[in-house]
């Protein structure tokens, strides 16, 4: 396939993906009344009111901060603890591996709506309602399985030759893990971190149920609370969505170079 064709195909795909976002940006700059009247591909009148409202009446920076803290801590915790477990599950011999992997996966398979009630009771008993740990802990039920399974996959895929070589040279298991395997698996770890972060960023039901006030509510909950009894403030909601993608986009940009760091050529061959 010629590279020109490939470039065109890529451009088409990017346009298809970006179009709804483009439209969201346009809509967030349009007065509400015109929005429902005639749809148009570019803004006829541009107003910044929705964005202004976000940062004045809605204090939107607070939920953004909360989301960053919760998603960030969840990711950090899951990636560190998860990579330890993943190393053991991928490289070490011991009984009960399948059981442990199965248990970790099974936990995330219960629909969130069914575990929301008992989780609420539990968090209340621990006094964790409306706190950061009160969100991070429940998030572990879906973030940890994702992290562990992804990392086990990555570690398995890396050929064990280098680690074996290190072990032969007298290194301990721990050293071969930290000095050899981890540096090689940076792309995998970076990918896992991004996926876990975005997963946690997006989560709505737990955040709605376990927070009480604006000081701890996350972005999806804050946006849901924009609604009045019948009215949906489209302009502000879309503006909020646009603003909320900025931290995520920044994180992805930061990490994306790491993702595609390939295997250093020659390290394994020969």
């Amino acid at each position, binding site marked *: 396939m010629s590279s020109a064709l490939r470039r065109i195909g890529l451009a088409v795909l990017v346009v298809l993906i970006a179009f709804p976002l483009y439209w969201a940006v346009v809509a967030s700059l349009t*007065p*509400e*009344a015109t929005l*429902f*009247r005639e749809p148009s591909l570019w803004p006829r009148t541009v107003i910044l009111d929705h964005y202004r409202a976000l940062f004045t009446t809605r204090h939107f920076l607070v939920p953004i901060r909360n989301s960053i803290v919760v998603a960030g801590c969840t990711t950090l915790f899951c990636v560190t603890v998860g990579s330890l477990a993943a190393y053991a599950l991928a490289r070490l011999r011991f009984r009960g591996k399948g059981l442990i992997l199965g248990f970790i996966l099974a936990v995330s398979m219960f629909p969130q709506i069914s575990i*929301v*009630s008992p989780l*609420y*009771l539990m968090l*209340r008993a621990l006094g964790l309602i409306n706190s950061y740990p009160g969100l991070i802990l429940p998030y572990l039920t879906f973030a940890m399985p994702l992290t562990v399974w992804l990392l086990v996959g990555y570690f398995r895929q890396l050929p064990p030759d280098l680690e074996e070589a290190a072990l032969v040279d007298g290194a301990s298991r721990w050293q071969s893990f930290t000095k050899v395997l981890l540096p090689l698996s940076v792309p995998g770890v970076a990918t896992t971190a991004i996926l876990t972060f975005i997963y946690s960023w997006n989560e709505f039901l737990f955040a*709605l*149920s376990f927070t*009480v*006030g*604006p000081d701890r509510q996350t972005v999806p909950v804050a946006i*849901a*609370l*924009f*609604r*009045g*009894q*019948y*009215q*949906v403030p489209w302009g502000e909601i879309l503006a909020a969505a646009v603003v909320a993608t900025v931290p995520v986009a920044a994180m992805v940009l930061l990490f994306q170079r790491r993702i595609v760091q390939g295997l250093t050529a020659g390290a394994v061959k020969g």
Partner: protein
Amino acid sequence: MSFVFVIVLLQVIASCAGEKDTRPVITYSGSAVGSQGETVRRQIARFQKLHPEIVVRVQPSPDDATQRHQLFVQWLNAHVGDPDVLELDVIWTSEFAAAGWILPLDSYAPASSEFFPAAIEANTWDHRLYAIPWYVGVGLLYWRTDLLDHAPRSLDELVRQAEQAMRGKDGPPYGFVWQGARYEGLITTFVEYLGAFGAEIMNDEGEVVVDTPQAIEALTFMGDEIIRNHVAPPEVLTWHEEETRFAFQNGNAVFMRNWPYAYSLLSDSSRSRVAGKFAVATMPAAPGGKSTSALGGAELAINAHGEHPDIAWKLIEYLTAPEQQLERAAATGDYPTRRALYDDPRLASALAVPLDQVRSAIESAVPRPVTPIYTELSGLLQVQLHRALTGQTSPADALHEAARQMKAVIRDSGLDERGALR
């Protein structure tokens, strides 16, 4: 100078060493956005000034009915003490009362006769009053004064007027828009058609009568608006309140069925194309029935596990007092629930809508069945109504099936002995 400094220092020390705030704290949870939120906060602030020995906090909960219901259920089921005062949708009162989550108010001797009887009826379960009506919503017929010279006096006339206006030069594309998506709003629309044909969902004995011949006529008429006369666009089957409002606001409809909140938005000439070109009326009837509005609105109740029910009652009394209801009407357009206020000239100037029309709409308002399992019954009915309106089944089949399912659920619930109504 140093004398002043010492005084200030002493005061600072005194306040540091001062007692912890031991005043009782109660929390209110309900609408806290927009003009409703501003009004509530203002009134709560005034209440605090009148009662400096009490602290009142506002705990916002989502205005989306489903989300607020979910959160309330979660908190109340966990026997959480706050919020002490809850803003309930009118259809939740019997459910929460039966579950034991809100307190009966009879011991406080509320002045029930001062409120509209329909609203009191909607909040009474097992012969006891469980919530005070705070503001009332009724279904209204909005009609275009630039296209018609009088409001329709019957449903048939409505259809004829709509057809005529649509056919005219520059006629709008839609005749009549109403809420027809598969949600509670569909039932509020349906209830009005039912009443117009002399039918109801449940009778006073608690029996399901949604499949009587008159009810079938009502549903047939509703469906014909879409399928036969094309007076209502098929889109209404996916529309909630806002979509219908925008359709009417953009000048695309002759009639709209909606709640009072739309009135001030439609009158805003900076965004509405029909500002000054519409009016409201009560829903018309058909032969054999009478003009009926669905009763909506919000009620205030006391958390059964709250620590300070007496103080919570004081707040409820204050918020539902005539002065506060008038203030709210002026600020938000929410209709008061006290009958006497409708003779008060201050209300006439506070509301944009002519008072006599509002009063007759409220007096013709019909509550939906008052039973703890109402949400489930409503869900079953919604599905069947929707199937009939999309032409998947006939109205008769749909209603018979709905009645059958509803009766089964009622039988299952052990409610016959307690009475499914009240």
